[in-house]
Every structure is written in structure tokens, then in C-alpha cells.
């Protein structure tokens, strides 16, 4: 039971990173990323390929995942720079699908649908059974660092500029903010965090395959961010763990529904996720921890 909880908590940590990534872009800047699963996959594959085929060290893999994630983020925003956000929604959704297609078909690089197994974990052989507990601590430490960084950004003039762009890009531009640059930078940072989450996931479970990066993950994270509260890192943290709790408890609940085949059980669970997201959007769109608008600092005018 304890090892199960440790496992779930680590996955919760990974989801928290994803939720923080989405919160930065959706909560602070008001841009949408429907391809979160794609950036997650890109990071997971980058680190897995480096550490298995390239025999590279794991820390380098994490750094690489950050870099590749950011690069993918730049690429995705590149074509939609001058466009409205509904186009970005379509492009990011398509991006995630293309990532999955490439992962499935470029067998020389990704081993196709079989996936990459035997991804090394840090100190795995030395720690033996304690590995999961250690990895949980490591994940939480990384989550903590990212969390503090985002809190810092949130409170800084940079974060205020991002929120100004969310509220009204034209006014922000008139105030002398380079809206395009802010948006591109924020999106790249967000994608980098998603990539890091992917790398952490891969080194934890030691196995990744294209099927693990279904668009469903993106829905989970949207549910986490909207339920927890958009525009606030602590909301993302709360939301991610709520979603993991919800996912795991529905796993047990659907078993009690009589006469349900495994296929129907999974269909029911997925449908419940969709319903949950709709209910949250309808009843409490600001989330459990709504954004606090700080009073503007007193200017010297």
C-alpha cells in the first residue's frame, strides 16, 4: 500500500509540473496549449534517447529535455505569432498528434510502438527498493524549484506584464510592452517545463511508448488547472493532486459497478473526466484557489 502511495505521489508530482506549465501559459498569459501531451512526450523521448542509446548521464538528459521542450515551444508559436489564439489551439493540438506519429514511425530513433524500455533511473541499482522513495523526494524537490521560480515570476514586473497582455494585449502594447516577445518567451518556458516533466516521468517508470502520450493527458491537466485555480501556482499544485486522486478513486469506483467489462470501465472513467471538466468550467471557473490581484505598487508620478 505504501509503495502504491509513493508511486501515485510521484505521478502527482509529474502532473504538478505539467499543471504549472499550463498555468503559466493559460493562467498568466491567456494563451492556450492543447498539445501539452506533445511537449511532455518530446521531453520524455529526448532524455530517454540520450540516456539509453547515447549512454549519457541523467542530469544531462533532464537539461536536454528542458532545451528540446523550449525549442518545440518556439516552433509551435512561430507560425501563429501574428494570429488569434484559436489558431494556436488548433496548431498545438496538431503538434501533439504529429509528435505521436513520429514516435510511432521513426523506429530507428524511438523504437516505434514498442516504446523505449530500460530507461535508467538515478542511483537505481544502489538504492534498490528505496529507489521509489528517493525519486519521490527528487521529483518534489524539482517541483519545489519550479514552483518557487513561477511564484517569483508571478510577483515580478515580468509577471504583471504577462497578466496585462492576458487582459488586453493592445493596452499592453501601447504601454510599450513587446507583446509578441513576452508571449513567445512565456510559451517556450512553459513548453520547457512540460518537457522536464516528461523526462522525469520516463526515468521514473523506465518505459515510454507513443500510447502513453494520448491527448487525454492534456485534458487531465486542463482539469487540474481549472479545478485548482487558474493564474496561481498553488492552484496548479492543488489541482494536480486532486486530479490524481480523482483518477485513482474512479479506478476503484468503476469496479463496483456491476457487470462492467474492462473496456466499458475505462470508457466510463474517461467519460467521467470529461464530465468533471465540464462541471468545473460551469460551476466554478475560477477554481478552488482563485487568483488574487495584488494592488498595484504605488507609482511616483
Amino acid at each position, binding site marked *: 500500500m505504501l509503495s502504491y502511495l509513493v508511486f501515485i505521489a510521484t505521478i502527482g508530482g509529474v502532473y504538478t509540473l505539467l499543471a504549472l506549465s499550463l498555468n503559466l501559459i493559460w493562467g498568466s498569459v*491567456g494563451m*492556450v496549449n*492543447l498539445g501539452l501531451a506533445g511537449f511532455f512526450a518530446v521531453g520524455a523521448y529526448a532524455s530517454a534517447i540520450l540516456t539509453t542509446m547515447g549512454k549519457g548521464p541523467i542530469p544531462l538528459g533532464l537539461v536536454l529535455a528542458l532545451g528540446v521542450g523550449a525549442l518545440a515551444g518556439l516552433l509551435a508559436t*512561430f*507560425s*501563429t505569432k*501574428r*494570429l*488569434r*489564439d*484559436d*489558431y494556436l*489551439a*488548433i*496548431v498545438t*493540438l*496538431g*503538434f501533439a*498528434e*504529429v509528435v505521436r*506519429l*513520429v514516435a*510511432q*514511425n521513426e523506429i530507428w530513433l524511438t523504437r516505434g510502438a514498442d516504446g523505449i524500455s530500460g530507461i535508467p533511473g538515478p542511483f537505481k541499482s544502489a538504492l534498490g527498493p528505496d529507489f521509489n522513495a528517493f525519486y519521490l523526494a527528487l521529483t518534489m524537490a524539482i517541483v519545489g524549484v519550479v514552483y518557487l521560480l513561477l511564484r517569483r515570476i508571478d510577483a515580478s514586473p515580468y509577471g504583471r506584464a504577462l497578466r496585462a497582455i492576458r487582459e488586453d494585449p493592445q493596452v499592453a502594447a501601447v504601454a510599450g510592452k513587446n507583446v509578441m516577445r513576452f508571449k513567445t518567451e512565456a510559451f517556450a518556458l512553459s513548453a520547457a517545463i512540460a518537457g522536464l516533466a516528461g523526462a522525469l516521468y520516463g526515468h521514473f517508470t523506465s518505459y515510454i511508448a507513443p500510447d502513453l502520450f494520448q*491527448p*487525454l493527458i*492534456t*485534458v487531465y491537466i*486542463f482539469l487540474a488547472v*481549472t479545478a485548482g485555480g487558474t493564474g496561481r501556482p498553488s492552484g496548479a499544485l492543488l489541482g494536480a493532486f486532486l486530479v490524481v486522486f480523482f483518477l485513482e478513486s474512479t479506478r476503484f469506483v468503476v469496479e463496483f459497478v456491476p457487470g462492467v467489462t474492462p*473496456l*466499458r470501465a475505462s*470508457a*466510463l472513467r*474517461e*467519460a467521467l*473526466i*470529461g*464530465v468533471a*471538466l*465540464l462541471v468545473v*468550467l*460551469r460551476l466554478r*471557473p475560477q477554481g478552488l484557489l482563485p487568483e488574487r490581484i495584488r494592488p498595484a505598487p504605488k507609482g511616483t508620478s
Partner: protein
Amino acid sequence: MLNGLVAGTVLAIPAIGFTAMFAVLRFPNFAIAGIATTGAFAGYVVNTSFGVPAAYSLVVAFLVAGLVGLAADLVTLKRLRAQGALVAAIASIAVNLVIENVVRWVFGNELRGYDLPIARDIRFGDFRIGPQQLESMALAVLIMAAVFVLLAFTRTGKAMRAAADNPDLARLKGIDPERIAMIATFVGMGLVGTGGMLIGLDTSIDPLTGFRVVLSIFAAAVLGGLGSIPGAVLGAFLIGIAEEVAAYALSPTYKTAVGFAALFLMLTLRPRGLLGEKEA
């Protein structure tokens, strides 16, 4: 090439539905994947269980998909639209997830085929084409003509175009925006469902039928310019042909990636699409 032309004609139907809904409601409705699947399965049920020929089953696909789409919109999306286009778009993904899993619950994951008369391919010199493909293409052209007549000559069609063009002005003229939104959703989703079945006729269907073609539908609509119906038709032809050519030149598995690449290039070079709206 010929296959591409067939694929393009068939793809045009859901692309028109998607773009028409976007024109009136101003948000990309991602639930079209599930609705296309719903239409395909609705047609499948009347086709295989009641022995209705495929061409007539399309009517059922249209009605069921339209009604399910409209119901989903009234229950969930309608109230969320006020929160902005992006919230509605995200909610439509959740709607899609629910619809897809309802279909999975009822029909399971296995592949299913329609009851179609077996017939020999027709040859045109070096080209070969299945009679079913030819029939699908003819039906698609017929549906497009019907949509065109609806929009160009009927009162409702004119009201829809007016509402898409300038909602405020349309309201001043006494056009009820709620009614137009409902009609647009019903007709748009109906077309998407019909398209789902037309696509399924060529191969087989399963709960992910709609999801697999959804990227091509987006690509067609964006390529032609979101909100433009002639644009969606043109975009669908181009995507259809490009995908078939790419399936020969590259590998068939990258078919959908080609659509995305086209979309990506288009947004970089000419963001409002081939026949897009002027303001962007």
C-alpha cells in the same frame, strides 16, 4: 490523384460543417471528432440492422449527428461561450471525450464495416476506382450543392450569413442570434456526421474514426480560411490530394502529418487562408 480527388470531396463535407459553425459561433469546436464518429455509427446501425442502403443511411447520420451536436451544445457549451472562445474550445474537448466514450461503451473498440454491395472496380484507362468511392463522391457533391442552395437562396441561409458577417447588425435587423446559433450547430454537426459516415464507407469504422480525420478537417478549414465555406471546399481538395500524393511518396502513416504541415506552412505564409476573411 484520382483517389485524392475522392478523398478531398468527401473531406469537404465535415470541413464545411466545421467552418460554418466557426463562422457563426466564433470558436473551434473540437467535439467534431466525436460527432463524426456518432454519425458514422448512426448510419452503421440503420445500414446493417435495418438493411437501409448506404445512401439513405446518410440522412440518418445527418439527423442523429445534428441532434447530438445540438444537444451537447445546449447542455454544456452554450453557457460557456460567454467566458470566451478558448474556454468553449476546451469545453468542446471535454464534450468530445464524453461522446467518444459513450460510443465506445455501446459498440466496443472493434472495427466494423458497412453492408455494401460488392462490385468490381471501374477502370478509366490506367486508373481504377471503386463504385462505392464514385457513389460517395457523387453524394458529397450533392450535399455541397444542397448547402450552397440553403445559404444562397433561403431566408435562413441569408440570416446565417448575415449573423456570421456582423452579429450586431444582424440583431438590429431582427435576426435572433440564439436561433441562428442553434441552426448553425445542427446543420454543421449534421454535415460533420455525414462526413464521418462517408469517410467510414471507404474503409471501416471504430470509436476513433472521427478523431483520426480531425486534423485533416482542421487543415482543410484553416487552409481555405476559417469561416469561409468555399475556402473549406478548396482546402479539402488540396489536403485530400496532398495526402494521397504523400502516401505514395512518403509512407502512408504520415498521411495526417501532411495535412498538419500544410496547415503550418499556410499559417506562416498567409495566415488568413486562401479565401479567408479580410479582418484577422
